Each structure stands twice: as C-alpha cells, then as structure tokens.
C-alpha cells in the first residue's frame, strides 16, 4: 500500500486571526503555524491503513514556502517514510495549482491512495482533493468518518459525513480520500520519531520541476473584516429573557 498524504502549513486554529490595518492580509506576528488539523488526521489514517495492509510506504507532501518543511518533518516524525516540499509562494497559489502539482506527483509516485484533509482551516476552500481526483479520473471519498480496505487492498469502503447522516461508498483504488474530524485521533510524534524524521529523505521541488503552469485561475484581490455584531445585553432572569425575546426581538 503506497499512500501520498498532504501536510499543509496553516495558522494555529486557536490563534486569533485579524487583518492588517491596510487590509493587505492577516497579521502574523504572535500567530503560531502548524499542520492543518485535517491533514494531521489524514497522516494518522495513512499510518493505520498501511498497518492494516501489512506494510507499505507513506509519502508526505507540503506545498508552500520553505517554512512548510516543518510540517513535512512533523508527518515524518509521526511515521511517514519520505517527504516532498513543493516550494511556492503561498500567496500565488490557488486550489487548482495545488491539485495539478499533486497530479504531477502522482504521476511520479503512482500511489494507491491520495489522502488530504477535507479543508484547510485558513482558506476553507475544500477543493484540492476533488480537483485532483477529477484530473486523475479517480474515484473519491470526501469527509471520511471511517475507512476500511477491501478486496485485498484493491478497494476501500468509506463512511462519509454528509448532510442528513452518514453515507457509505465503495471505491476501487487508486482513489482520493479526504478526512473529517471524527476519523481518528492523530498521534503525537514521539521523541525517537522526531530523531528519526531528521534522517528521512525530504526532496524539495518547484512547480517548474513538475512542469506545472502557475497562472492563477482564482485570485484573491482584497480582504475585509467580517461584519461585527453589536454587543448585546445581559439579562438577569428567565422572565426578562422571555420578555425581551417577545417584545424587543420579536423572536418568539
């Protein structure tokens, strides 16, 4: 079982994100960066699937600036075998470019599965996996809640979190899978894992190395702060709450 898994570098989900005064982007002083939580779940699932399959190889990839090497190393410390950093200026990427970079890497590596987080918690685009799957002509199972290999590792049965419940699909491999929150609890990298990760192969490539055109299909041309809600009032009793809801808010 050979799995290609992504490890995007994003802002810490618990950091407070605010725009710079000139609105050119977000303030990054005092903001921590780490692996996208959904990618952590993808790395964990890849490790479990390779175990379940009785062996294999996990290749981790991050697309971003040099700093994103850290996320590749984190995945290697969790147990992935090899890594790629595809070096690119984060502000000059869109989902489509990232998808085509992954397609090029798939051509090079021929994995059985490509696993990604269902969305990155910075851009919230939720597109890369589906674009990648279509470019490859592969089946996909997004928002995975449970993944089981079937047919001696030639297929996978995936339960997916969808509107209205949990759906099950059967895909034949190779396929693309994206992970939802409840698929697993990612492990922490152990100290020996971190030591070992330093020696694992990590190759840096550029989009040009992979022959990928980086013209943007989707371009961010500006930012604004979200509308703020006017501060409300505190009520002291249930009766006062009902009174306000009935007469002021006309909500009941």
């Amino acid at each position, binding site marked *: 079982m050979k799995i290609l898994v992504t490890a995007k570098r994003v*802002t810490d989900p618990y950091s407070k*994100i605010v*725009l710079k005064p000139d609105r050119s982007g*977000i303030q990054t002083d005092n903001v921590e960066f780490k692996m996208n939580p959904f990618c952590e779940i993808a790395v964990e699932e890849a490790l479990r699937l390779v175990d379940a399959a009785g062996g294999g190889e996990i290749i981790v990839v991050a697309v971003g600036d040099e700093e994103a090497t850290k996320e590749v190393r984190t995945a290697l410390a969790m147990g992935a075998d090899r890594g790629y950093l595809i070096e690119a200026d984060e502000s000059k990427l869109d*989902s*489509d470019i990232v*998808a085509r970079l992954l397609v090029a890497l798939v051509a090079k590596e021929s994995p059985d599965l490509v696993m990604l987080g269902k*969305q990155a*918690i910075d*851009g*919230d*685009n*939720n*597109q*890369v996996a*589906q*674009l990648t799957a*279509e*470019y490859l*002509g592969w*089946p*996909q199972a*997004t928002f995975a*809640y449970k993944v089981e290999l079937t047919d001696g590792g030639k297929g996978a049965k995936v339960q997916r979190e*969808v*509107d*209205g*419940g*949990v*759906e*099950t*699909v059967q*895909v*034949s491999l190779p396929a693309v899978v994206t992970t939802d*929150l*409840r698929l697993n609890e990612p492990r922490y990298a152990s100290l020996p894992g971190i030591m070992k990760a330093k020696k694992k192969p990590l190759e840096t490539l550029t989009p040009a190395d992979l022959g990928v055109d980086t013209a*943007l*299909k*989707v*371009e*961010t*041309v*500006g*930012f*604004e*702060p*979200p509308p703020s*809600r006017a*501060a*409300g*009032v*505190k*009520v002291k009793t*249930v009766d006062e709450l*009902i009174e*306000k809801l*009935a007469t002021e*808010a006309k*909500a*009941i």
Partner: protein
Amino acid sequence: MADILVLAEQQLGKLAKASLHAIGAAKILAEKTGGTFEIAVAGQGVAGVAAQLAGFGAAGVVALEHDALAQYTAQAYAQAFGNYAKASGARFVVTAATSIGKDCAPRIAARLGAGMAADIISIEGAAGALVYRRPMWAGNVIAHVKVNTPTVVVSVRPTDFPAAEATGTASLVQSQAASVDAGSLRMQYVGLEKVESSRPSLTDASVVVSGGRGLKEPANFALVEKLADTLGGAVGASRAVVDSGWVPNDWQVGQTGKVVAPKLYIAVGISGAIQHLAGMKGSRTIVAINKDADAPIFQVADYGLVADLFGVVPELTDKLAARKG
C-alpha cells in the same frame, strides 16, 4: 442556451431546499450579467423534480437521466453536469455549498477548466469584473476573489442568498439522457444511515437550540431537545459533544459543520470558540446561556443569561410552553 447553469439537488425525487438558494444566486448573477439561467437536475426518473422547478423564471429546466445517477456519486454526477455544462456553453455554473455541492462542484470545475469560488456569500461588481466575497479563517476574514477563466464555477452559501420564489411563468422542461461514461466509474453508493428526525432540518429551521459540553453528560442533552421542541426548532451542537458521540455528526454547527442563520439561535453551555461562531453568527437573534460571564459566546449574543443551565433551561422551557398555552 442560457449562460448560467444552476445545479439542483434531489434525493429520492425530493428537491433540496438549498437549491432554491442556488437559484436565488443565479438570478442575481443573471441580473448582473444581463444573461439568463437554466436549471439542471440529475438522477434516474427525475422528470417530476424538474417539473417542480418550472416556475422559477429559468430559461429552461433539464432533467439529466441515467441509471448511473440513481444515487449520488461524485464521479457520475461530475460527468453528467460537467458534460452538460460544456455542451450548453454555460459560462457560469452555480451550486449550493451543501455536502453534495462541495463534493462534486470542484470536479465539474476541473472538467470545464474553470476556476471555482467556493462557499461565496455575495457577488459584487459588474459583468466582466465580478468579484465574489467568501469567508476564510472560520469567517475571521472575508476575502474578495476574482476568477480568471472564461468559465466560472461558484458554490454559494445558502444562508447568504435568498431562496428563489416562484414567478408564475412556466419554463420549458425537458428530459434527456445524461452523458455519463459508465465504464469509467469506479465508485458505488452503498447506503445512507439517515438521522431520522421529526424536527425541522438544521439549515431550514427558524429556531435552532444548540448544546455544548456544559451539559456535562449525554442524557442531559434532552434539556436542549425539549427546549427546541417547545419552540418548534431544530437541534444543533458544538463539536465537543459531537466528538463525544452524544449526538449525530450531522448536528454540528460551525466552520467545519453546518452554517445556520435562523431567526433565533439559543446556545446552551457552549463557550463560543471561533469555529463554532463561524457557523451561527449570521443568526438574527442570538441567546447565550452560560455560567461563565466571560465566555466568548456573550460577545455575539444579543441576550446573555449568566446562569447554571440546569436551573434556567427547564424554567425557560416550562415558561415558553405555558405562554403557548
């Protein structure tokens, strides 16, 4: 044909309400671009759904029929819609950002060589220079994006676009065989474990009562459900309680769950993490019940009640029930 193609969703012959909001967005787009829109629905035996879509002012409604579309799968639906969009010459493809829309719209974009703006909340600017507004970082930032390709795919956040209303005029409704290469499909639908509920659905309800970890244990979630039922509302939850398995996954409100915007949202024992706020701060009136006066949920609440939920929630439920008589 029309320059805007709206994808309508159906399940077992029932039209998804979110699709009415996608049609609402298409109407806005049509006004801005001076164009017309067409609605496509895919499935097997969906002429009835197509007929339901006849009254919304579309230039046409098309039912794309194929055995392989009997149940939704990403590969087959992307082929059916993508191939139809290409053949019809549509320049815009519009879908709702539901779990199906999120799953298949990017695949359609890939087939069309189109750029896609995901989960947009408004369409700005004039024809030729359209700008789409969309939340990023759990709604902490609103980005303005432009799509540089001749064909554009957008998924729209249903809470931010008006549901289309029937106009009275009847569109021409047609059925045709969908273009699907059945031999290329390598995935099958197996089944759906449906969350059965007699309550209104979370995304359509005018009242939503959500519970969080403050409820302490699963059995106490009944307090939230009873309050919701008294108000005829839906029940939501924070991620913390969904992860703990107290309630179905489908109830999660937030950045990575559902986005809701009811007339009244009541948060019970929820701290108000940014990921939760991302899914509910568009609600018209927000009530927070929390014993911690400094909980961030109070920063977005119109009415905050600092109290032990175990005392005030039953009291609120009883008094509201008594008011109803």
